[in-house]
């Protein structure tokens, strides 16, 4: 038997590559070669710890798997000389170790016990960062394709539907519709052809769980689609993925090819007589194309514009045939539920929100990245225990969930359990899983404006309230942040928001006013300060802030004067400086460079 080799595994998801993982990979190969080390070098996908990319894992045979973070060129050299060559982990770069691989090292935290991990529950992401997405064997070695064998072997399309129904799984694409029920509708529809579509459009800015799953565990999606297809009676599946996800698409292509070779896909799946093929449709990356009827139009080669429902896709979908559309994360749950059972799945979560949910944690947070939690843990646990709190000791202000369709939740709501009902009650939505943390330096009017800028530009333009209404909302917010807000603007925002919500055709328009309504509800005084006092309390909105130098503490170091692009700052060495406000363009450079906190931004 071949002697077991030391393994070096580089995280090569999109986030890893962006952080320079490809260079590290090449360097590791070169360095091992020059040192004459016989290693197995491989890549894996994103494990979710995007705050610590580049990630490199080393497994010495018989020993625990060790994860290194923020690996630089120097670090990889050291890791190879010490850990790979001599089995001595390099403490300063270590994040944690995983004992399931073998003997543990002293003084290295256990991966699962780190505060980042111990509140997480990895179901959807269980393979991400652990298998080579380009290897079907890796997937199979983790129990992959067992579910398909079970479902197709059982022969009854309704069996899987019953399991999914009993599990309580709800769609992870945003609307939270019970998945088993959706399948049942489609199963009952009578038609010569049916379709299953995987929605991988992922348009919510800041969310990237679908990308990570497609990149890191593409076979799970294929398997989920196979089971859905068998259950509803579809022999054709489409994956609608934005073209901005090239790695996800190429990994999925490899996976589809491998699945064909193993007869998991094709005209006679596992010799059962069941036919199932998958086609990838690349979208141009429009937010609205994530809406199911727009998505269908886009696959059909039409402009991606929603149409009125009913008829629902389960009755009349792609090419007029009954169609189920499921989100990537929803589908990734399927094989796991089939193998481990409905009871296992529903043991996670709350009364009405079962299972786990993946969130993309971003914004003012120490440990941003992808996390997967059992439904029902609190926002506080996510932000402080998993996310490590707010950087630079700033105070937490709010967290936006549900992206541009959602709302913000305040400090008073930090103990809200994260599940569909509680988050809705608190005034936001779970949505597809974006979670953006804001601190005291964020202006809530500006945040609302940011989301409206997004929605108004992503509106498809079909219906009047959304096409023109969201533009007008954006313009009102814009003038408020510019200090041109007027009396009555807040009432106008509220009236128009309500009408857009009621009158728009699709979910995009119907939810677009949410960021405004929720910030108005929770932070109305900030709006009022902008309009009535022409003041931005968080000192973000440029036209409303002034920079001055605090004479008392200014040391006259001249750093600000050197940094100022418009020479607005004058003063002699070792004497207090002065800003000529007419010249100041409010770039903030002086504020950033002053080591004595003597520049006042107000």
């Amino acid at each position, binding site marked *: 038997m071949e002697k077991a080799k030391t393994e070096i595994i580089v995280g090569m998801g999109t986030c890893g590559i962006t952080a320079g993982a490809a260079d590290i990979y090449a360097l590791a190969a070169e360095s091992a070669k020059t040192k004459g080390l016989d290693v197995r070098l491989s890549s894996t996908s994103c494990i979710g710890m995007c705050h610590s990319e580049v990630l490199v894992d080393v497994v010495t045979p018989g020993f625990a798997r060790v994860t290194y973070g923020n690996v630089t060129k120097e670090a990889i050299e050291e890791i190879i000389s010490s850990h790979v060559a001599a089995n001595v982990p390099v403490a300063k770069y270590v994040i944690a170790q995983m004992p399931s691989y073998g003997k543990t090292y002293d003084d290295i935290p256990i991966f699962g016990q780190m505060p980042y991990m111990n509140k997480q529950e990895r179901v959807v992401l269980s393979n991400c960062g652990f298998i080579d997405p380009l290897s079907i064997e890796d997937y199979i070695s983790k129990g992959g394709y067992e579910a398909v064998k079970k479902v197709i072997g059982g022969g009854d399309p309704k069996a899987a539907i019953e399991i999914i129904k009993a599990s309580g799984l709800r769609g992870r694409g945003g609307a939270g519709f019970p998945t088993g029920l959706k399948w049942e509708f489609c199963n009952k529809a009578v038609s010569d052809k049916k379709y299953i579509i995987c929605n991988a459009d992922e348009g919510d800015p800041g969310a990237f769980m679908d990308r990570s799953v497609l990149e890191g565990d593409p076979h799970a999606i294929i398997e989920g689609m196979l089971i859905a297809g068998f259950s509803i009676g579809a022999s054709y599946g489409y994956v609608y993925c934005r073209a901005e996800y090239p790695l996800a698409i190429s990994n999925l292509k490899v996976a589809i090819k491998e699945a064909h070779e193993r007869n998991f896909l094709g005209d006679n799946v596992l010799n059962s007589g069941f036919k199932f093929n998958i086609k990838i449709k690349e979208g141009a990356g429009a937010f609205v194309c994530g809406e199911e009827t727009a998505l269908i139009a886009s696959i059909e080669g039409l402009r991606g514009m929603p149409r009125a429902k*009913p008829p629902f896709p389960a009755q009349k979908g792609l090419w007029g045939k009954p169609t189920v559309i499921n989100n990537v994360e929803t589908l990734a749950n399927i094989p796991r539920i089939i193998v481990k059972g409905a009871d296992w799945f529903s043991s996670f979560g709350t009364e009405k929100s079962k299972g786990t949910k993946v969130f993309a944690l971003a914004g003012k947070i120490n440990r941003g990245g992808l996390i997967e939690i059992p439904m029902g843990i609190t926002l506080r646990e996510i932000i402080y225990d998993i996310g490590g709190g707010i950087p630079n000791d700033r105070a937490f202000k709010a967290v936006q969930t549900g992206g541009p369709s959602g709302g913000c939740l305040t400090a008073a709501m930090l103990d809200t359990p994260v599940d569909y009902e509680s988050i809705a009650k608190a005034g936001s939505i779970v949505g597809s899983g974006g979670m953006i943390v804001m601190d005291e330096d964020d202006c809530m009017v500006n945040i609302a404006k940011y989301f409206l800028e997004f929605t108004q530009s992503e509106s498809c333009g079909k219906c009047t309230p959304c096409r023109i209404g969201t533009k007008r909302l954006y313009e009102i917010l814009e003038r408020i942040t510019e200090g041109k807000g007027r009396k009555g603007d807040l009432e106008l925002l509220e009236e128009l928001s309500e009408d857009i919500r009621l*009158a728009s055709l699709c979910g995009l328009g119907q939810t677009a006013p949410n960021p405004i309504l929720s910030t108005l509800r929770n932070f109305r005084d900030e709006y009022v300060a902008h309009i009535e006092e022409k003041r931005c309390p968080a000192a973000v909105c440029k036209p409303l802030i002034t920079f001055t130098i605090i004479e008392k503490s200014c040391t006259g170091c001249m750093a600000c004067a050197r940094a100022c692009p418009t020479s607005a700052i004058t003063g002699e060495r070792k004497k207090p400086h002065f800003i000529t406000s007419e010249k100041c363009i409010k770039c903030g450079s002086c504020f950033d460079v002053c080591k004595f906190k003597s520049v006042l931004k107000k």
Partner: protein
Amino acid sequence: MGIKLTIDGKEVEAKNGATILQTARDYGIYIPTLCDNPALEPYGGCRLCLVEVEGMPKPTTSCTTPITEGMKVKTVTPQVERLRKTVIELLLSDHPNDCMTCERAGDCKLQEFAYFYGLRSNRFYGKRRQYTKQDGNPFLERNMDKCILCGQCVRVCNEVQGVGAIDIAYRGFDAKVCPSFENDLNCEFCGQCVSVCPTGALTGRIWSKKGRTIGIKEVETTCSYCGCGCQLNLHVRGNEIARVSSKPDNHNEGWLCVKGRFGYEFITSPDRLTTPLIKRDGKFTEATWDEAISYVAERFKKIIADNGPDAMAGLSSARCTNEENFLFQKFMRAVVGTNNVDHCARL
């Protein structure tokens, strides 16, 4: 068996598959619309036709919602009236409001709603679409800053004309109906799009400044260009045609082709022949119909007498009706006595 429901308290009945709007129209119940056209697929874009249905959490568009048994519909409520008004205000906030000089004033649905909702002022204002580049095509004036994106032109071009010359490009506020790559329109110029446009966004070039509603008389006539005999509705001011339309209840269902819609300049052309001409001494001179027909008959007779009937041949025209064509071949065969008869459209 039809489906029974109530609209504004009135019990009505319609076929399964009908929409609320169709049913309401059948019973003479008015619901305001801007994007619906009975001849086209439902669209649901303008959001003017919103109605309240008992049990539904939000108002729904009557043009897209199929009726169901026992449904209770209200077409006028404070809520839907408020939403309709907001929609019109939003449309006007991105509109040139150019009625003074607009070709369509007096016959424009947007103007009409602004009038009915009494919108002298507008809560909304902001950026307006302004397009300076003019479409250089010879027939259609396309003022896209007056377009309300109702999508009727796009649908008629696809669904009725089968051409697909235009679609909506860009997203959100910048959405715009245009030919591919914003080239100049290069299509059949049937003007179907113009005929369905609810505003002054689409008009005929030759209709410009020919009159709007004052002093316009409508004259129904039959197009003389082809055997289809489409019914034309000439809008005439004085002795001049201002524009041409066609009514949806005629055999051509209100659709025309480029010739019928725009090809009427010959009527007042100085080159147009208004009496028969006979060449005398190498020069055409005016004649009466009797003179001309007698002259032709004489010549025909002579040719037949001198060279036999097969020296004659007749070619008929697609501009003639079936009846005229029948008569023509009968004339050639029975009167002239030859089978040499053919038709231009046979090629």
